[in-house]
């Protein structure tokens, strides 16, 4: 039986990118005879994102207020859980991710004993042209080191927002998901609950438009927040970053 796949695309003020992202997925589906379904979570955008979503009949949920990336993505997991999707993929609406790698992620999930597959920029450096700034890479490897100490598992691209999960993790994440900086924290959470995680190399692009969700002065706050949460997390603990 064909597995039901949902792409969860959180979008906050993505009027410049969201249509391109949608069209690239449609086109890919048509060419490759795949049936990736899409659910855009409009996280209380204040620009014309909502108008674009309505005009082009892009499936979406409009959040009543801005919940932040974690709250938005969790809404997607809730939708995926309610509508019996087998796999859910987090996919950025800003053009950083490449739709062609979805198949790779899914293959890992389908074949092996794996619950989450992370699309990683750093496993195979040749694979990805975009490697992010030095400061950010230092931050990422710092988080990576702490996660390894904590869980015994080496995750290279801890902040990658390109990841696929199976039904059990869809259920887990729909019940609880960190609100502020969810990627590294949800990863540790999944590991602490004995879920299996695998990283595979993918290529990412630099953002095509709009701003990244992490600005300069917030970087220090980001590091402190994430590291503290990870260090204080107990096995199978509830958390709220």
């Amino acid at each position, binding site marked *: 039986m064909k597995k039901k796949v949902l792409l969860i695309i959180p979008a906050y003020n993505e009027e410049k990118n969201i249509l391109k992202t949608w069209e690239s997925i449609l086109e890919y589906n048509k060419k490759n005879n795949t049936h990736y379904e899409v659910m855009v979570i409009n996280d209380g955008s204040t620009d014309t994102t909502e108008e674009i979503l309505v005009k082009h009949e892009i499936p*979406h*949920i*409009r*959040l*009543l*207020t801005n*919940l932040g990336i974690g*709250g938005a993505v*969790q*809404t997607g997991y*809730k*939708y995926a859980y*309610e509508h019996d999707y087998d796999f859910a993929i987090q996919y950025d609406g800003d053009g950083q991710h490449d739709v062609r790698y979805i198949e790779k992620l899914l293959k890992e999930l389908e074949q092996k004993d794996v619950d989450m597959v992370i699309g990683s920029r750093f496993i195979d450096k040749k694979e990805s042209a975009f490697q992010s700034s030095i400061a950010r890479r230092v931050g990422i490897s710092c988080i990576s080191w702490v996660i390894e100490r904590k869980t015994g598992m080496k995750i290279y691209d801890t902040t990658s927002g390109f990841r696929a999960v199976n039904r059990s993790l869809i259920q887990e994440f729909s019940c609880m998901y960190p*609100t502020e900086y969810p990627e590294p924290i949800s990863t540790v959470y999944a590991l602490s609950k004995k879920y299996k995680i695998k990283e595979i190399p993918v290529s990412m692009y630099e953002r095509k438009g709009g701003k990244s969700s992490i600005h300069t002065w917030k970087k220090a706050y980001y590091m402190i927040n994430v590291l503290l949460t990870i260090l204080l997390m107990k096995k199978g603990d509830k958390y*709220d970053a």
Partner: protein
Amino acid sequence: MMLNLRLFLIALSVILALIILRLIAKNKLPVKYSLFWLISSFVVFLVGVFPDFIRIFTKLIGFENSSSLVACVIIGLLLLITLLLTIIISEQKRKLLLLVQEVSLLKQKIDK
């Protein structure tokens, strides 16, 4: 401790307690959140009535005089109350998040 300060503390605690009790009676403050305030005002009351009690602590902790200890105790109580408020806000935030998600999901279902 000066008599003036003692009278001030007693008056302060009584007024505070009356305000809190009135708020509970008017249903503007649930008992759950008022208890800490009542206990605080009781502590202040005790300090006003039994200054000897505070004198022992003043020596023990190493304050120069009792009035600074009293100020310190009140600041401590305020800090605790602020901490409680932060905890309550966090709880509210989590509940609000759930609510917004559920309503948004329902709206999407209806509009489809």
